[in-house]
């Protein structure tokens, strides 16, 4: 069935749970879209180091796949790298920290706020601005930032931070305050380039990692101020959390994001399925994004991607109707579509096209 709404009309309607011509869709294809630029040989290193190249992947991705959103995820080591950690950049692999910069308690205390006008923070802001400029009239755009605890665990290693939560509590808080200040600067810089929203990666809100008390103490209280600042800077506050067993009560009901992007782990007991997520009221006031297995974009045939997407669409439509909702679910991948060279681009297209064909909601 042909679309009768444009992307922005559809996404705005879905955010307000108004009737739509079809469900929204956005497989989280960021880094992988660098393969659509030029001769297709852009390395990851180039992509994350040059604002124009970063933006070009989103622009080409939109031309090729016709998404409903564009969200500027780069990788999770941007802040850590600008805090002095060594980041390894392979040609075809997501950059990651190989040598964290914060090794001692004193390092937490001496940490200074990175300058957002330098390093990859600058590339991220500039690159986001460029794709927002190019795509902002076509789709809902959003910037993407790592939450303070995620940045700290990247810069000091998760194991160290988790143990220091008990052994060196005040030093951990000192570092988190510094990182929150950096994040505040990033929010203001992102606000200036005018994306419609800003997505926070609050990854550690997972019952496999932290309980409510630790999460509230070591991220919740810092996130509250950043979430508020996001709104003040004119961006809709959104959250991405692809961990298993996410803290949905805290991150959806308490933090009240406009969009919440999440993954589904069928092997892990208690991992909420799309149906359960809707049934339990988490889509009542928030557009939920998920929950196709990102691995499918690498390993499945096109036929299997179509069938899986059709099944998810049907599951979501049934659950939305049963809950009295119209459209508050975006068919997406639970985590980033693997940016590997082996990812099947045709599966991304298949996912989008299947939603276009079968995503009409008639309760």
């Amino acid at each position, binding site marked *: 069935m042909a679309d009768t709404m444009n992307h922005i009309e559809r996404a705005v309607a879905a955010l307000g749970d108004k009737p739509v011509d079809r469900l929204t869709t956005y497989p989280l294809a960021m880094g992988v879209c660098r393969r659509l630029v030029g001769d297709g040989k852009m390395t990851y290193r180039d992509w994350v180091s040059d604002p124009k190249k970063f933006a070009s992947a989103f622009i080409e991705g939109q031309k090729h796949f016709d998404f409903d959103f564009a969200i500027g995820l780069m990788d999770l080591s941007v802040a850590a790298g600008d805090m002095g950690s060594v980041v390894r950049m392979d040609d075809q692999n997501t950059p990651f920290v*190989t040598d964290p910069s914060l090794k001692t308690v004193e390092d937490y205390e001496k940490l200074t706020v990175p300058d957002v006008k330098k390093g990859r923070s600058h590339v991220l802001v500039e690159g986001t601005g460029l794709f927002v400029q190019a795509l902002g009239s076509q789709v809902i755009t959003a910037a993407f930032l790592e939450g303070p605890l995620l940045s700290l665990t990247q810069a000091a290693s998760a194991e160290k931070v988790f143990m220091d939560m*008990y052994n060196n509590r005040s030093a951990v808080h000192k570092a988190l305050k510094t990182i929150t200040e950096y994040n505040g600067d990033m929010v203001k810089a992102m606000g200036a380039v005018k994306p419609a929203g800003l997505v926070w990666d609050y990854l550690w809100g997972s019952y496999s990692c932290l309980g409510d008390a*630790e999460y509230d103490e070591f991220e919740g209280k810092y996130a509250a101020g950043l979430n508020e600042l996001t709104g003040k800077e004119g961006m809709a506050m959104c959250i991405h959390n692809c961990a298993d067993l996410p803290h949905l009560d805290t991150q959806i009901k308490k933090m009240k994001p406009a969009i919440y992007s999440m993954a589904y782990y069928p092997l892990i007991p208690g991992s909420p399925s799309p149906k359960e997520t809707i049934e339990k009221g988490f889509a009542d006031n928030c557009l939920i994004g998920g929950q196709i297995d990102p691995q499918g974009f690498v390993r499945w045939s096109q036929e299997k991607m179509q069938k899986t997407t059709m099944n998810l669409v049907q599951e979501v439509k049934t659950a939305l109707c049963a809950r009295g909702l119209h459209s508050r679910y975006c068919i997406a991948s639970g985590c980033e579509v693997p940016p590997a060279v*082996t990812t099947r681009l045709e599966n991304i297209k298949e996912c989008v096209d299947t939603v276009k064909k079968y995503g009409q909601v008639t309760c």
Partner: protein
Amino acid sequence: MQAQDILAGLEKAVITGNKADSIKFAKESLDAGVKALDAIDKGLVKGMTIVGDKYAKHEYFLPQVLLAANALYGGLDILLPHIPKEDASKKVIGVIGVVEGDVHDIGKNIVKTMLTAAGLDMHDFGKDVPTENFVNAVKNEKASLIAMSTLMTPTMDGMKAVVDGLIENGDRMKVKIIIGGAPTSQPFADDIGADWHAINAQEAVKKVKGAM
């Protein structure tokens, strides 16, 4: 102090993640003539098993598990040199590591701790481990178990490279292979020719102990 109190002290030190107490009671156990193996099994491991159960029930979370593991290793460092060689040589040797190109090792460290607590002699290769280190583990480490993890998609194929390397050098049938990490699954393990996939440390212990 009675042997029973020392063992209880070791158990509690692990449960509360108190490394200093773990070291203190480990030394006291040796002074009191408690067999090192008993101090490990009836003190440290008993405590770690309780920690594992509490984690599975979401009563404990990663910080408590990591502190408990730290306490366990503190005690083990004192006690392991006192295990008679003939007992030590009966242990199944396993190697564990994060595959090449990936440095996310928190899950690997927990699995290593739980397998150690289950009685295996685990050799930790660390993170970003070159394929050949796993491939040569049977020859170089006398390993009967290879445990590999990755949290990232692009590095999953490194697991297949290890299995292929073991087939090529003739060691595949001498070793069991278990894999884990968020993007992995049993179908993936089947695809690449590994023996098992585990979704968490408890399941890894169950599968390994059940078969070895």
